[in-house]
């Protein structure tokens, strides 16, 4: 039997002084690891620096305005630049894609984790990885030639039967190159990322609670509803936000299927839409010096928007994964 003797010994500090080679090694890695901070800062700085005149001249109208005109009067380039319609269009398309894509992704993640037989699981995982590796211009090409004709027909049906729902209404029955079609292309593009994040979080649902639910006579769905969904919901939200960030920044694929116009349009079926990234590409070729600065300013707005959405998404995912451990 041991007798406990309480002594007042202060814990001794253990310190090792790294050898010079190690100090150099650590110093290099330390500096290099900040390259991402440097790059992010440089992006923000250069875009705001080049776009500064636009922000100064256009003021708050640059964000809220719906007009984009540029003309040369007496050899001086003048313009009114407002990307309000583009921002609204970007959000409309991205949120529509999320609304369609997230339920499909979450269900696919459930299927992969809890329903799929081993072979189907391997096949579907490969397909999702493939999808993530497809170049975005390929999605654009496919969207334009294959999906758009089909989607136009679906849009007609939706308009015919559901136009009493405001979002499915349209000023005229013109459905080609609509935000709806762009959103469908984006849906396909964000499914891999949303599915893989959801799957990751679902797969961490604690086995002992899953067993407890089954032992209480739960069906698979009852188990998922009681254990997996309360556990994984925040992960799906985080995945959806990451998908939203992707959707807002997509350029080429959207450009190919969307009719870009500086008109405020919230009717997803109507063939007029806005998108910040695609607009930059569209206007770039013929832009003069002043207009190109406005485009760089638009790029800055897009950069900040996606940065904020992605940061929130990453915090949510990090929290979701951590709470599972």
């Amino acid at each position, binding site marked *: 039997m041991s007798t406990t003797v309480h002594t007042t010994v202060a814990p001794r500090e253990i310190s090792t002084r*790294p*050898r010079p*080679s*190690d100090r*150099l*090694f650590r110093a*290099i*890695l*330390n500096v*290099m*690891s*900040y390259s*991402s901070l440097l*790059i*992010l800062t*440089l*992006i923000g700085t*250069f*875009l705001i620096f*080049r776009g500064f005149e636009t922000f100064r001249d256009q003021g708050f109208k640059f964000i809220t305005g719906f007009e984009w005109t540029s003309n040369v009067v007496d050899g001086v380039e003048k313009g009114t630049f407002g990307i309000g319609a583009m921002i609204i269009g970007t959000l409309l398309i991205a949120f529509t894609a999320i609304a369609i894509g997230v339920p499909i992704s979450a*269900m*696919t993640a*459930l*299927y992969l984790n809890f*329903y799929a037989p081993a072979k*189907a699981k391997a096949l*579907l995982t490969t*397909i999702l*990885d493939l*999808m993530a*590796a*497809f*170049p*975005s*211009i*390929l999605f654009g*090409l*496919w969207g334009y*030639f*294959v*999906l758009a004709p089909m989607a136009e027909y679906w849009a007609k*049906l939706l308009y015919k039967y559901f136009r009493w729902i405001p979002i499915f209404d349209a000023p005229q029955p013109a459905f080609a190159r609509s935000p709806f079609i762009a959103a469908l292309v984006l849906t*396909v593009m964000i499914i891999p990322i949303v599915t893989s994040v959801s799957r990751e979080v679902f797969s961490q649902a604690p086995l002992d609670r899953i067993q407890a639910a089954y032992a209480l006579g739960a*069906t*698979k*769905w*009852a188990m998922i509803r009681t254990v997996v969904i309360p556990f994984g919901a925040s992960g799906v939200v985080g995945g959806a936000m990451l998908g939203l*960030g992707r959707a807002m*920044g*997509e*350029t080429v694929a959207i450009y190919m299927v969307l009719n870009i116009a500086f008109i405020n349009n919230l009717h997803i079926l109507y063939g007029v839409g806005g998108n910040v990234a695609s607009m930059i590409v569209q206007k*770039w070729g013929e832009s003069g010096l002043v207009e190109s600065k406005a485009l*760089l300013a638009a*790029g800055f707005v*897009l*950069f900040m928007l*996606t940065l904020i959405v*992605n*940061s929130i*998404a990453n915090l949510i995912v990090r929290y979701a994964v951590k709470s599972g451990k």
Partner: protein
Amino acid sequence: MATNATVVSAMKPTMPWQPTRGDRARSVIRLLISALLTYGIVALTPLKGKLAYFFVFIALSTFITAVDKFRAGGKKAAQDSFVSALALTAGVIVFLPVASILFTTVSRGVKGFHKTLLTDTMAKASITDPISMGGILHAIVGTIMIVLLASIISVPLSIMTALYLTEIKGRASGFIQFLVQAMSGIPSIVAGIFIYAAILVNTALRGSAIIGALALAILMIPTVTRTSQEVLRLIPNDLREAGLALGATQWKTVATIVLPAARSGLVTAFILGVARIAGETAPLLFTIGAADTLNLNPINGANSALPYYTWRTLTGGTPESMQRAWTAILVLLIVVLALFITARSISRRRIS
């Protein structure tokens, strides 16, 4: 021994929880009924096309199965079957566009294959010329140069960042991790216009392979960093401790033990990074100029790349230029898939 063996084989393993032949027959009958009803519904309503058949069939078979299960096991069995049908449907829906994309690309792209496709450039041919003229050599060479340059810039940075996050685990780790994730969300067009705004505005420099590579490097860094990090995390700690216990410095341990052990994983990270950027179009629109001819000089003069060439041919608007686009995208897809399969087989070999 012999008696033991007979005892073991006396009873065969069974899985009484799996569906019986009767269950299977029942589900086949349900599917047949759904198929018949689907045919009738599509014939009698304005719905049309293959996808109409598909969705009506899915909805009907889900409903009929749920009703059947309800009769056998009540509400909870019906709900369970309904959700499992939804989950399966989601999996199939994910499968459809990929199949369609692969089918379309291959079937349309192969029509443009011709003798000089991989050996000629567009120097003497216009994109609206008949498809048998010209080729994509300049785009392939451009893509290779740009991707290699981007890798040379980004891979060392990425691996060092990953080493910082896994080996040093310094005070700033959480923050750096956050920044790397924030970087992975940068829209590709922003990388393009940033390089344009930083380098090409107000300078004598013009678009070239190296400028394009700078833009792509920004997009490559987060992918390579995060994959390398995963790989380095898998290296068991006893390996590191063994090195340190032998009196090696941390630097020596990393260089002679950790990195060699992670080699194939780091190659996978590099390949995934390449696959990430090889298909990028938007950044190149602002950064590589526009070349129709072979340019072997990476730091001077306009260049081309497969996705960029695809973009350019699309603007032609004639059947010939569209054909060129499909063919170029097929070649690009083959390149990306080859990279992808290589990465997977390397990482699989590592696991087994």
